[in-house]
């Protein structure tokens, strides 16, 4: 029964969270956003007391059921492990807790957390890892499917699906997601919940509480015939049937053992049924180090410059503004934009400041996947690795959109209204004379002025004594909110003639 309830809930939760990350329509965030907000680490980072209290209470009553029905990464590993179990029955056996990995990892995690080394924190955060995997690896496939549907819809003149751009948002984050996925599949395939019980900091924190949970898996020594089926089917390797011992710090209350026991000798209940059950003090022989534990840390190539250079090389080098020739028709080649080297990175409206972002973000990529304008992408800076940063080569932070602030579960991007957004300065525009088309080509432009939502740009004569000459943009920084409309729509390519410098602290204008 427990198992049935558990698997049903788990499948629903996993499917919905995955959908939350995959959704290209933007319609599901309002309905499913709460699933991200009840995740443990994001709730801690958002100082979401209600959720934290609820999760602590849940664990004190039911044990680590969080790991089985709420954590998407845990459920995902269960799926992998389940596939293996279909082929090979009774494949697990008891192994003692690997304290020498578990507690140092937690200690490191807490130190990194306090010290603000968020890239390390984000690397270990289970929900975020899952988010990265879905966003980087599954979403492109989903989008591809969506685009096929969009093509079909187009054929039938239906507007039900619209095409979406598929692009690599950050190579380092993609690599990290891929490596995490491979490691997780290997670990789950071999040892079920190895990751959750040796590396995952959330698992370790919850394990402190689950030892004292009210409901527990308990063995009845009288009924038990020591067949060992419970141990052989415990993906947490937490049941030592020989000594009637269950390691509650690792049990994730999946209920597999209850189903397997033919003699009704194992129960999920609140007090001992067997009288002589030894709850603890089992010889936890520190067996020799097994090679199972693997550090999830992966090598990260975070050199932004090399990434940019390769991106630049991938774009076709084409001269723009060829001018109208002798013949009609055809299309001019459009060179891809290249992001400027911003001295201060831009963070989206609602994030309050670079500091707030760094402090709260777990790099789950939910905002990145929700951004409909191609603005947000994972940072490649080591200190803020994988946290969202804004750039305007593909689109700009549109005035009507507050998607990222709606979905953020960790309080890194606080909810912001459209009105507040339009008066929140996240950066300011800077003009680069050498790139500006009126200066270089001598033609009228003013596309930045035309698209500035706050009227912060005015076109003025380059030469104040020659009002008939070309006009250049004059930016009133006090009105500029840093949305990037000017940068994105600037005809100068690959480097815009006007670009946004981020502000460390956002302010209201």
């Amino acid at each position: 029964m427990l198992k049935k309830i558990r698997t049903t809930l788990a499948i629903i939760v996993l499917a919905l969270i995955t959908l939350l990350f995959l959704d290209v329509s933007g319609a599901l965030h309002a309905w499913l956003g709460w699933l991200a907000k009840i995740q443990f680490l994001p709730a801690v980072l958002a100082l979401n007391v209600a959720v934290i209290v609820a999760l602590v209470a849940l664990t004190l009553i039911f044990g680590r059921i969080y790991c089985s029905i709420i954590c998407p990464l845990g459920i995902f590993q269960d799926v992998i492990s389940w596939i293996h179990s279909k082929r090979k029955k009774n494949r697990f056996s008891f192994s003692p807790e690997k304290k020498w990995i578990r507690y140092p990892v937690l200690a490191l995690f807490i130190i990194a957390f306090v010290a603000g080394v968020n890239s390390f924190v984000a690397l270990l955060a289970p929900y975020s890892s899952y988010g990265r995997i879905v966003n980087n690896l599954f979403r492109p496939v989903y989008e591809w499917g969506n685009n096929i549907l969009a093509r079909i819809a187009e054929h039938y003149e239906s507007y039900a699906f619209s095409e979406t751009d598929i692009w690599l948002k950050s190579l380092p984050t993609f690599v990290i997601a891929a490596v995490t996925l491979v490691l997780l599949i290997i670990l789950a395939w071999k040892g079920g919940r190895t990751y959750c019980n040796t590396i995952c900091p959330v698992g370790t924190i919850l394990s402190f509480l689950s030892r004292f949970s009210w409901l527990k898996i308990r063995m009845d020594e009288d009924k038990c015939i020591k067949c060992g089926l419970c141990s052989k089917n415990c993906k947490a390797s937490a049941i030592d049937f020989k000594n009637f011992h269950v390691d509650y710090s690792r049990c994730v209350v999946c209920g597999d053992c209850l189903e397997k026991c033919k003699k009704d000798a194992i129960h999920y209940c609140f007090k001992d049924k067997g009288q002589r059950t030894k709850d603890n003090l089992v010889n936890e022989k520190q067996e020799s180090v097994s090679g199972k534990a693997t550090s999830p840390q992966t090598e990260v190539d975070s050199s932004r410059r090399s990434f940019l250079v390769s991106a630049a090389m991938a774009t076709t080098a084409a001269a723009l503004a060829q001018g109208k020739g002798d013949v009609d028709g055809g299309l001019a080649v459009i060179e891809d934009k290249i992001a400027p080297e911003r001295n201060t990175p831009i963070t989206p409206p609602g994030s309050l400041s670079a500091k707030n972002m760094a402090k709260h973000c777990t790099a789950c990529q939910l905002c990145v996947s929700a951004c409909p304008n191609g603005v947000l992408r994972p940072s490649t800076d080591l200190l803020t690795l994988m946290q969202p940063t804004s750039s305007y080569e593909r689109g700009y932070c549109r005035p009507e959109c507050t998607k990222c602030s709606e979905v953020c579960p960790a309080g890194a991007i606080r909810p912001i209204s459209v009105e507040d957004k339009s008066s929140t300065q996240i950066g300011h525009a800077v003009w680069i004379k050498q790139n500006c088309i009126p200066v270089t080509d001598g033609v009228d432009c003013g596309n930045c002025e035309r698209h500035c939502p706050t009227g912060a740009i005015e076109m003025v004569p380059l030469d104040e004594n020659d009002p008939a000459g070309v006009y250049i943009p004059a930016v009133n920084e006090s009105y500029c909110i840093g949305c990037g409309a000017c940068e994105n729509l600037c005809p100068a390519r690959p480097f815009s003639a006007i670009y946004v410098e981020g502000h460390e602290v956002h302010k209201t204008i």
Partner: protein
Amino acid sequence: MNKELNRRNFLKYLGGGLAASSALLAACTDGERRTSASKQEPPKGKMTYRTNPNTGDKVSLLGYGMMRLPVEGGSERDNPDAPIDQEMVNRQVDYAIEHGVNYFDTSPAYCRGFSESATGIALARHKRSEFFVATKLSNFSPNTQTTEGSKQMFENSLKQLQVDYIDYLLLHAVGGGGMPEVNRRYMDNGILDWLVEQKQKGRIRNLGFSFHGDKEVFDELLTWHDEGKYHWDFVQIELNYLDWNWANEINDSNVDAVYLYSELEKRGIPAVIMEPLLGGRLANVPTTIAAKMKQRDPEGSIAKWGFRFAGTPKGVLCVLSGMTYMEHLKDNLITYSPLQPITEEENEFLMEIAEDIYNLKTIPCNECNYCMPCPYGLNIPAIFSHYNKCIKDGNIPHEKLDKEYDRARRAFLVGYDRSVPKLRQASHCIGCNQCAPHCPQRIPIPQELQKIDDFVERLKQEIVIAPENAE
């Protein structure tokens, strides 16, 4: 615009109607059911011809315009960079000649410069006496406006077309930019006199001009003709049932076709007609208008009305049609084999239709691509075409309270991204105005693009005010 009848239903209904009426007709005549509608296959030897008073040429009323040639993988609109589908061009030219078409009109500028050679390849497979070829002196850019540049352009046309004389040579698109532009292109460099010389040498059989724009230029050129300064063997004008009375209303720098035609008729100058369908805009009308036209002629195509109208005036030598696809060609051949002239009553009917179309306030872009390529990468005709299509389909949302608003908004925005890649949309128009002087319809292109961009912006932000020119 209330249209409960969507296109699909309309077609269904139409198909049913067609089947019913043909069945009825069949019942009246031979009492047998037909396996397909009659009049779908053009007859041979029935083409209407007009005689050129200068040379006695018997010219087919249907002329083949080589400006919208098929490209590999479909139409140029969808694949602007695809090469011309020469095999298809050959096939269609052969078919046209077989069915009596003998006038082929091209220009060095058409189809990114590939039209003349494609026309040459297709025509070289036929006897020189079987066809008349028309091309133009398209010296729009300053480097072809020199005497040498223009001469070279003409010589190159002969080479590309694989002929040693041109039957009909036109000064290309005079009128835009006024007389100064005419002088710059044809007078100051002495090229018009040189062309007259070529005519005397027999390398040009008929000399004329194609006209778009300023009335003064048209009048002045005809005055030259009256004074005997130059003789125009023919003049190419834009004529269709919309431009007949509305051209000037749509854009006050344009001239109504009724004026242009009667000035030519007065002087006995044969008129070659271009834009009989306005780049297909007159065939591609909203369902409400289409239904009216079908009601009157259930078996004819919508396009047929345009061609019958353009071909009816006696002074028309030839009506050009840029037939990209075989079905265009077949339909037009049916229309002109032979021509059934428009009756007075039908003429009144078409004037009503013209008013309906005028009231749609679409952007008068005929997708001729003269404005292209835009140096900043925009796909100008595709943007206008999407906007016009949305007007036609009732997808221009007006009021937010309108129950159709959400559907229309989505249809407009999603359709926009589909028909024009984001980087080629109106938001990227910087207003450099390099395109506008090339537009034969004299559309203020940057202003129109920015108007559309404003409209898109309002749709995206859901600030709902209908754009100026959609009511």
